């Protein structure tokens, strides 16, 4: 049966036209220019890159190739020689004697050749076996790194690193008691909705969405969204309100999303609970999952506010990783995000702040400084774009 026809020429012409139109509409490419091959390779040679690092990263291993084995094998047969003589007069005789000797020595040389051949084949087999095992090691390394992250998190949730058994408690009940009402949380998060107006086509994911307050705000703004939450009770609670909340680990859930498929990634009051390595990984994965221009918001406790340590930070025993705003911004930029900004929120109640005593200008300045140090906003967020 003949295959259905494909008018390839017409199709390619059509694609050329469409490509030109798209490029005109989008403007010039913003991709970094291609590095000149020769110049880049010479620069790398000057940097003397490690011989194994890129190789290990790239997965498989092959130490020798056919050409090197060929060279070894070419030497394997000691009898494989040309006979000649440079003596013009007796040359023929010399060559004949050499040939005769070669014939006499043939049994010995053949045994030597067989031994050499076996040795070369053993090298080849060893090389294959080594390559195979290195391959396995490379793959397992990735799995072990993932497991370490999970293990660190389990241990970390319990508090001290040297306690082998994780300590658990009803975190949902704890949050109900101390995080504040849903209305209060919604009011705190409302300021972030503006980053998703107009709504992206792709969904926004709320990592560690808790009771789903931000998902509700996004829904009201017409932004497609879903959330990830580890606590079963929280998931059930959010679902009863019609929210799309999936149960699981935030990093695992994010890794399973196709690359470039998200319009936004947000995470409120989560990273202070994670080991640093996991936060770094989470940011890198978020970068790859966001479409170009997609927005990232990561909110955490503002460690620049000293009262925060006395209140929000200390009250929650599962806090483990304070992150200075400049540190978090640096990590976000390292993950490849652009246009980063710091947004502060959660002002301390005015009646807690120090009041200046008297009219003395110096006292007033000092009180203002102390207020700034003690009662800076309790939260901050890094807002950035892919």
């Amino acid at each position, binding site marked *: 049966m003949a*295959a*259905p026809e*494909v008018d*390839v020429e017409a*199709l*390619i012409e059509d*694609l*050329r036209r469409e*490509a030109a139109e*798209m*490029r005109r509409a*989008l403007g010039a*490419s*913003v*991709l*970094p220019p291609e*590095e000149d*091959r*020769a110049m*880049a390779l010479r620069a790398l*040679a000057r940097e003397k890159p490690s*011989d*194994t*690092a*890129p*190789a290990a*990263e*790239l997965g*498989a*291993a*092959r*130490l020798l*190739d*056919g*050409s090197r*084995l*060929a060279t*070894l*094998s*070419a030497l*394997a*047969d000691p009898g*494989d020689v040309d006979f000649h003589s440079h003596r013009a007069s007796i040359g023929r005789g010399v060559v004949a004697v050499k040939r005769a000797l070669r014939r006499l020595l043939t049994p010995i040389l053949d045994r030597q*050749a067989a031994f050499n*051949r076996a040795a*070369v084949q053993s*090298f*080849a*087999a060893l090389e*294959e076996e080594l390559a195979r095992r290195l391959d396995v090691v490379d793959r397992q390394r990735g799995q072990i790194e993932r497991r370490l992250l999970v293990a660190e998190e389990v241990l970390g949730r319990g508090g001290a690193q040297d306690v082998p058994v994780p300590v658990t408690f009803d975190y949902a009940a704890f949050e109900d008691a101390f995080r504040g009402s849903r209305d209060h949380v919604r009011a705190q998060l409302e300021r972030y909705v503006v980053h998703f107006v107009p709504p992206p086509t792709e969904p926004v994911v709320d990592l560690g969405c808790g009771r789903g307050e931000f998902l509700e705000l996004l829904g009201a703004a017409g932004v497609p969204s879903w959330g990830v939450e580890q606590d079963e009770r929280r998931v059930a609670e959010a679902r009863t309100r019609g929210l799309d909340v999936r149960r699981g680990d935030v990093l695992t859930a994010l890794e399973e999303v*196709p*690359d*470039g*498929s998200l319009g936004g990634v947000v995470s409120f009051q989560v990273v202070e609970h994670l080991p640093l390595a996991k936060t770094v990984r989470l940011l*890198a994965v978020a*970068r*790859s999952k966001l*479409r*170009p*221009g997609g927005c990232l918001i990561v909110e955490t406790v503002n460690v620049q506010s000293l009262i925060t340590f006395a209140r929000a930070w200390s009250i929650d025993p599962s806090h483990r990783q304070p992150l200075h705003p400049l540190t978090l911004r640096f990590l976000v930029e390292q993950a490849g995000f652009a246009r980063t900004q710091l947004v502060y929120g959660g002002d301390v109640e005015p009646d807690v702040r120090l009041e200046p005593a008297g009219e003395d200008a110096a006292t007033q300045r000092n009180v203002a400084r102390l207020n700034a140090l003690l009662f800076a906003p309790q939260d901050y967020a890094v807002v950035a774009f892919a």
Partner: protein
Amino acid sequence: MRSWLSRRRATERRRVAILVPSLVRGDATGNDALGMQRALARRGYTVRLFADGGDPTLGFASAAEARSWLQDGVPAIFHQATQWDNGFQLLRRATGLRIVRDHNVTPASFFEDVSADFVQAAKVGARQREQLARDPAVAWIAASAMNARELAQLGADPARIAVVPPFNQAEDLARIAPDEAALRRWAALPADVLFVGRLAPNKGHRRLFRVAATYGELFGRRLRVRLVGSYDRRWSAWLELLRRDRVRLGLDGSIELLGTLTAAELHAAYLTSRLLLCCSEHEGFCVPLVEAARLGVPVVATWQAAVAETLGPDALVLRDASDDLIALAIDRVLRDAALRERLVAAQAERFARLHADDVVERSFLAAVEPLLERAGCA
């Protein structure tokens, strides 16, 4: 007694030696040599494979052992793919019919600034190919018409060059059950784009990376790319350059390097990929294209002589292609199910017509048997 002697003489007359630098199943040259052995054995020839290394379970003898056969006038089929001093010397001293299977030699320029060893090996390989091309006694079996043209330019007599595609493992792959663990792992997130080929400087990985980044720019979505293929640690500079490209282009999370796979894993990789993209800059034939054809994976490729020839006129081979055009072609194939179906059908039809085992076997025997007969080996 006389009948035993005549039978023995007949057997000795019908011997053929196949010389290959390294014999490994799954490798293009290795598969081709094994296919030739099968085809000739079916026709009653006594065929022996000689190699300098490879998988010992494939039952080859060392190349050095070929000497006595070749000095006895046994016809030799020599696989030319790279520098192979030992095999080259043996062939030059052979007294019988000499047939060279040309897989082409990757030009040395690709290895400049990457590996001095490989530059040297490529230069010597090219010189050996050239010397053989100038030898009027050598008959050629080229893997593609592009190879045949090159050989004629090097001095080979066009009348002594036959074009026969290489024996390939595509049908074996289709028969082998895909690796279950790999299938489960990759089917969860199928690859948008697959490429199969060693991570060598001629295989176009840098172009492929740029196309993937361009796709993200044009369509706001990242391509999930899987790369299958071995690499050599002596190319660490090249691997480092690829790693840098990947980071610079923001492709960190979207390119997965799978390394060398077993046949069952490779089958799984094809089954869990939506498209094969080939941006290779130099190929003598490019076997993965026919594997994709047999396994129903549509192909998008940039124009390169042997690639266009292997894929044929009904395939999506883009000449003078910009990164934008390739990205757009990928998008069209991914989105347009009818187009995908037509491409896959056209590829399957071409495979059945030109690259299936029985077809390759017929064209190989049609090229080789007359030569063997003339050499008194029938």
